[in-house]
């Protein structure tokens, strides 16, 4: 068995490969392209999403992780689609010539690629969802989500208005979930025709935000085979749902609780992942939205064995670490025992082959790590 990691950075992707999860070989591909997401389909083809403020977004495919080919199609809004002024304001730093002043809606980043039920889904910013049913050769917008009635009230998070989380139900192709910063979490039960906010029990990101679609979800993880049990790392804390997202409860027993910039107390972080064989869930807490680094510099992954209580895992991780782990930068390989991998905003990748009990550095000197995805072949 070979474990392959696709590590996305602003300057390309590091491909790390290992047959024993101890020694790793590294190759750097797609040089010069910001790499933001990856996926693998059920026939073994890998997909990488790239974006550039100058040259837009695109997808590359490979059947061996060595030779990559750019596809001639990518998710794109229609010329008549209107954009979100607040999102435009946030991304305007790259708009040197005033393109956004005309108010159009543009795909400026693919945040997430997700393969499910024979289709490839892309979650993008400005927030939207697209699907390809021909392995990325053509893309269609999912209008039931992209033109959601609540869209005029969606407010971007600090990183823009992005659809960054896509989850699917292995046993029900009509049920999917999408998370948007900062418009919360949505579910469809009719194959994408209609979508409903699923944020009951989760505080809005700020008190002035809409109660139904003002949540700043950071990431959500689950077991696709037991899809209705969901774990959600929110700007305002870690939550669990046992009913497919209809209701949420805070689960922070054992997690470090910090004070956010607005005085709210909760456990803050971005990334989450699940080891399917054990059911253990993992998050990487940061010391609030002001500092965004591990408390007291101790890099720690927290594990929950029962979906309620958490324990810190620090063996092999540095105690002088003042960087972040971003939302897409934690992944599990689903082997037995489960392997876990994460990258930091300062370009180091850590690996565990014992469900997080111990860690070691397997790559360093990379640019800011934006995504880590593990694949087994």
């Amino acid at each position, binding site marked *: 068995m070979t474990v392959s990691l696709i590590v996305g950075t602003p300057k390309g992707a590091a491909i790390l490969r290992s047959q024993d999860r101890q020694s790793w070989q590294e190759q750097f591909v797609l040089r*010069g392209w910001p790499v933001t997401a990856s996926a693998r389909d059920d026939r073994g083809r890998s997909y990488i999403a790239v974006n550039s*403020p100058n040259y837009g977004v695109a997808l590359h495919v490979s059947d061996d992780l060595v030779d990559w080919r750019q596809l*001639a199609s990518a998710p794109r809004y229609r010329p008549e689609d209107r954009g979100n002024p607040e999102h435009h304001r946030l991304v305007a730093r790259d708009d040197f010539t005033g393109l956004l002043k005309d108010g159009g809606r543009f795909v400026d980043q693919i945040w997430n690629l997700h393969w499910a039920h024979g289709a490839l889904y892309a979650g993008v910013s400005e927030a939207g969802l697209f699907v390809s049913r021909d392995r990325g050769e053509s893309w269609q917008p999912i209008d039931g989500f992209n033109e959601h009635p609540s869209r005029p009230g969606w407010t971007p998070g600090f990183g823009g208005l992005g659809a960054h989380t896509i989850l699917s139900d292995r046993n029900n192709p009509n049920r999917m979930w999408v998370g948007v910063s900062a418009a919360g979490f949505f579910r469809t039960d009719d194959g994408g025709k209609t979508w409903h906010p699923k944020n009951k029990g989760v505080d809005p990101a700020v008190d002035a935000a809409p109660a139904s679609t003002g949540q700043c979800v950071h990431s959500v993880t689950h077991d696709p085979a037991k899809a209705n049990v969901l774990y959600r790392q929110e700007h305002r804390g870690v939550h669990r749902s046992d009913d497919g997202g209809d209701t949420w409860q805070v689960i922070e027993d054992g997690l470090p609780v910090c004070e956010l910039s607005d005085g709210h107390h909760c456990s803050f972080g971005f990334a989450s992942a699940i080891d399917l064989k054990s059911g253990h869930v993992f998050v990487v807490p940061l010391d609030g939205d002001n500092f965004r680094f591990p408390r007291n510099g101790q890099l720690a992954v927290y594990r929950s064995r029962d979906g309620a209580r958490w324990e810190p895992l620090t063996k092999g991780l540095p105690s002088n670490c003042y960087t972040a782990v971003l939302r897409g930068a934690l992944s599990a390989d689903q082997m037995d025992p489960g392997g876990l991998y994460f990258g930091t905003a300062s370009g180091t990748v850590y690996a565990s082959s014992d469900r997080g009990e111990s860690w070691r550095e397997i790559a360093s000197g990379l640019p800011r790590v934006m995504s880590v995805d593990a694949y087994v072949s």
Partner: protein
Amino acid sequence: MSAEPVRVQLPPVLRSVMGGERWLAAEGSSIAAVLADLARTHPALGLHLFDEAGAIRSNIVFLHDGEMVRAREAASRRLKPGDEVVLTNALAGG
């Protein structure tokens, strides 16, 4: 006999889209027309040249005859057969 094509130099980041090719040949009497020809013959490259609204991506700039030409000027910038155009982009930083 057809006219000599215009030659377009790609920036390094776009050469990877074209298998490492630095120069491409295209036809057209303006920079915009040449880019449209490139997008037609090389759709994967076309993604990077035109945005959703069909406009040349606004951060692209061109060098032609020793002058810088911005994207909004590409339609009016006339080309002769055999001209060379350098395609590059706005750069941030010092």
